[in-house]
Every structure is written in C-alpha cells, then in structure tokens.
C-alpha cells in the first residue's frame, strides 16, 4: 500500500507547502507593516532591499540573535513548551487544506492537498482549538500579572466565540452534506443563470459574516486582540517572552490568520474555482491564493481602522448577539436547503 513513490510525493508536498506557508507568513508581516504605514500616512519599512522586501529576513536574523530570557520564578517546563503548543497545531492545520484540483506533473496525477481526511472540517476546528493552550499556558507560566490576565482573556474569548464559529459552519455542512473539504468546495462548482457562481456566500451571507467575525476573534486580532491589549497589559500573554520564543507566537498568529482565511475561502468563496479553472487546473492555486490575500488584506485593514473591544462588550456581543443569530441562521439555512434541493 505504502510504496516509495507515494512516500516521496508526500514528502515533496509537505516540503513545498511548508516552504510556501513560511514564506507567505514572513511576507504577510511585511505587507501588514507597509499597509498599516500607508493607512497612517507614512511609508512603513522600505529600507532593507527594494521596497523593504528583505525586511522579513532581517527580522528573522534579529529574532535569532536576541537574548533568550526565562523569568526566574517562571514554571520553566511550561514556559518553554507554550510557544511550541501554539505553533505546532497552527502549522499542522495546513495539511488538510486543499488548494486546488488534481493536476498532472511528469505523467503523475497529483491532488493538490497534503492529505485528504473525510472529516477535514472537523480536523481543522480541532487543531485550531488547541492553539489557545499555547497562549493560556504562556500567560500562566510566565508568573506575571499581565501575562496571566492575557492568558485568562484568551481562554474565555475562545470558548465564547468557538460556539458561534461552529454554528456558522453548520449551514455549509447542510448544503454540502459532507465534512470533507474537497466535497465542500466541489458542491460550489456551478452557476446560477449561467454567470453567478454557486458560492455559499450568496446563499448564506449571514453565516459568512458570523464566520468572519468569529474567526477574527479566534485568531486574537483587532478588534478582538484583548489577550495582548498593549494599552492595558503591556503585551499580554507574551510580555515575558523574547527571542525565538516570541517569534514562534508571532508565526503561530500569522499561520492562524492564513488558516482562517483559507477556511473562509473554502467554505464560502468557492475555494479554488474561478474562470477557466476547468481547462487549466494550474489556475486553481492562483485563484485560491488571491482569495486568501483578500481576507489577509481585510485583517490588516481592520487593524488599521477599528478600536479594540472592551471586555464586557466582547462577552455581550459573543453570547447575546452572535450565538443567537448563528442559531437562527442554522434554522434559516436548513429551510433554504429544503427549498433548493
């Protein structure tokens, strides 16, 4: 069953996807700094290399050579483990995300995903929900008031918004009848009246908005970045972290952003589908990347525009608005599914 060429194919795929993901993360950071600069009427980092393109490299080197500090009273084992717990699930999620249909390279038919699981959607949610432990434990093990507050906020926030996130996806599952991400995308591959694509965003816009809001909350980004609120908590859960350990939290945050963007694309924007993708399957990953880029841009745009929620506003919004609306949306979509199919 497990022959050498399948093994090689796997290893090559894992290597390529990992390389692309890490490069993408590095350049999303640069994109964020430059875009925020433009939003705030300044230039952003543009000195290292042309247009500042070598800035991520310089940042990486700087992280490597910084002093690695462990606080004296910290729980040392957990303090070291926490960044790893945050990073590993964040990177693992990419393994079940399909970014294109099958393509043929060197006479081999290659499916454009690392692995296909029949409950892919569940795997993504399970893995992303593990990431919170990294943040919560970082906060606790640092033995600092600010860190602990950040960790506590993060765990409370995750529990509150995870429900809305899962409920918003139920509508998509009702339409596709499958938890397999490839099936979810393939169900969106046709047109109404010949030109409107059958993307889920058009049939369940409320579900899409709930997913987007909850996903931003889950990734701890503005306006939901209470775990690291720098105006109140110094830097929140990573106050005591420095050097590569801090960088690992940073990478995990951006990896989670990429995952959330690709999930939004797969579930609501028709994944890799776009014009002429049937004739040239290689266009698939390009459309997919463009759609992800749109969501990443949205993340940065929001960060440049919105103020942070207050803690009680966050809780009230999550429990008293988002979850009831998500529940109503499930009923609505179920009715719609009966009408259409």
């Amino acid at each position, binding site marked *: 069953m497990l022959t050498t060429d399948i093994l090689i194919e796997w290893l090559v795929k894992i290597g390529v996807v990992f390389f692309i993901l890490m490069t993408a993360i590095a350049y999303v950071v640069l994109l964020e700094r430059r875009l925020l600069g433009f939003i705030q009427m300044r230039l952003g980092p543009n000195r290292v290399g042309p247009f500042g393109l070598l800035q991520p490299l310089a940042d990486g080197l700087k992280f490597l050579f910084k002093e690695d500090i462990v606080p004296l009273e910290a729980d040392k084992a957990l303090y070291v483990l926490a960044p790893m717990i945050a990073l590993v699930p964040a990177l693992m999620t990419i393994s079940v995300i399909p970014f294109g249909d099958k393509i043929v390279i060197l006479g081999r038919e290659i499916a454009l995903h690392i692995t296909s699981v029949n409950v892919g959607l569940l795997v993504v949610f399970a893995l992303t929900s593990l990431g919170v432990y990294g943040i919560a434990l970082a906060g606790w093990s640092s033995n600092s008031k600010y860190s602990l507050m950040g960790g506590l906020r993060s*765990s409370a926030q995750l529990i509150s918004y995870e429900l809305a996130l899962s409920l918003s996806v139920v509508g998509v599952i009702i339409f596709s009848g499958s938890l397999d991400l490839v099936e979810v995308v393939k169900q969106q591959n046709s047109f109404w009246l010949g030109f409107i694509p059958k993307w889920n965003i058009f049939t369940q816009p409320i579900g899409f908005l709930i997913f987007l809001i909850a996903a931003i909350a889950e990734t701890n980004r503005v306006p939901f970045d209470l775990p690291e609120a720098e105006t109140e908590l110094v830097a929140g859960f990573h106050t005591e972290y420095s050097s590569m350990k801090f960088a690992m939290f940073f990478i995990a945050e951006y990896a989670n952003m990429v995952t959330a963007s690709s999930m939004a694309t797969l579930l609501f924007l028709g994944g890799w589908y776009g014009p002429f993708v049937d004739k040239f399957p290689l266009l698939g990953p390009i459309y997919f990347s463009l759609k992800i880029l749109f969501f990443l841009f949205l993340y940065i745009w929001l960060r440049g525009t919105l103020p942070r929620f207050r803690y009680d506003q966050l809780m009230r919004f999550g429990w008293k608005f988002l979850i009831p609306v998500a529940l109503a949306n499930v009923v609505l979509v179920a009715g719609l599914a009966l009408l259409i199919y």
Partner: protein
Amino acid sequence: MLKGIEVLFFYLLSLLCIFFSMLTISARNAVHSALFLISTLISVAGLFLLLHAEFVAGVQILVYVGGVLVLFLFVIMLVSSGQTTRRIFTNQFAIGVAVATLLGLSFFAAISQVQATNYFRAREAKQEVVTKNTEKVGLQLYTQAVLPFEIASLVLLVAIVAAVRLARDRKQEKIFN
C-alpha cells in the same frame, strides 16, 4: 486484528494514556494535572483514530480538549496562584489499596471477555464504510437514541439554569439589569 505498524501505535497510545492518567491524579500542581488530563484525552482520540472512527476522534478533541478543558484551565488559573500542595489528602491507605485492587481486577475480567470479540469486530466492520461514519452517528442519534439525547440536553439546561441561580443572588440581579 491489528496488523503491523498499527499494533505499535495501539500499544504506544495505550501506554501513554495510562501513563498520563496516572500523572493526572498524582501531579502536585492543578495546572499540570489539567495538562496531563489533556494529554490523556489526546491519546484516547488517537485510539479512536486507530478504530477508523475519525468523527469521534475529532469531536473528542474539539469538545473535550478544545472546550471543556479550556474552561477547566480558566477556572484553575483564576482561583489558584500557582502554589503546589504538599498535603496528604487521606490516611486510609489500606482501604485505598483494597478498593483499587478489586476495581482493577473487575476491569481486567470485563476487558478480557470483551476484547477479542467486540472491539476488533467493530473495527473490521467499519473499514468498508469509513466515509459513512459521520452519517451513521447522526442517524443513530436522531432515530434510535433520540429520547436519551433530548433528555441529556434537558438535564444540561436544568444544570445551567441552576448554576446561574446559585451564582447570582437577588442583589446582583439588580446590578446587572
């Protein structure tokens, strides 16, 4: 039966499971204890995967690890200031050993009867219909098991209402409204 590398994974995961659950009850620090419990639950999810029950494994991690234990950790972090307890909880060592031995023996007896039959038969039967697992769970839940399912939700609802009632007295009720 389990073959090849699966045997290795089965014993590895089972050993990890037992090891972590022992650490869960013997850890001095409440946060460490919660973390060992999380590790136990993840090992159990691995065992579910070996049974080709991907849905159950996913739900196990999503609900228990990603939900219930985050709440545990939240409460532990909120109330304890990270001190470790060095107190011995009980002095009834002899009774403890006796009860543990009896319990262990009865578990062993129960498992040795079931093991060869149900566990592996269920596993073999599922291999042909792997993709339909989730659907089957759903169908069972909403046809045969619909009454216990609804009763369980009702019990949970009552528990939630009771918890809120206990936690808030009338004075607080006025403040919040």
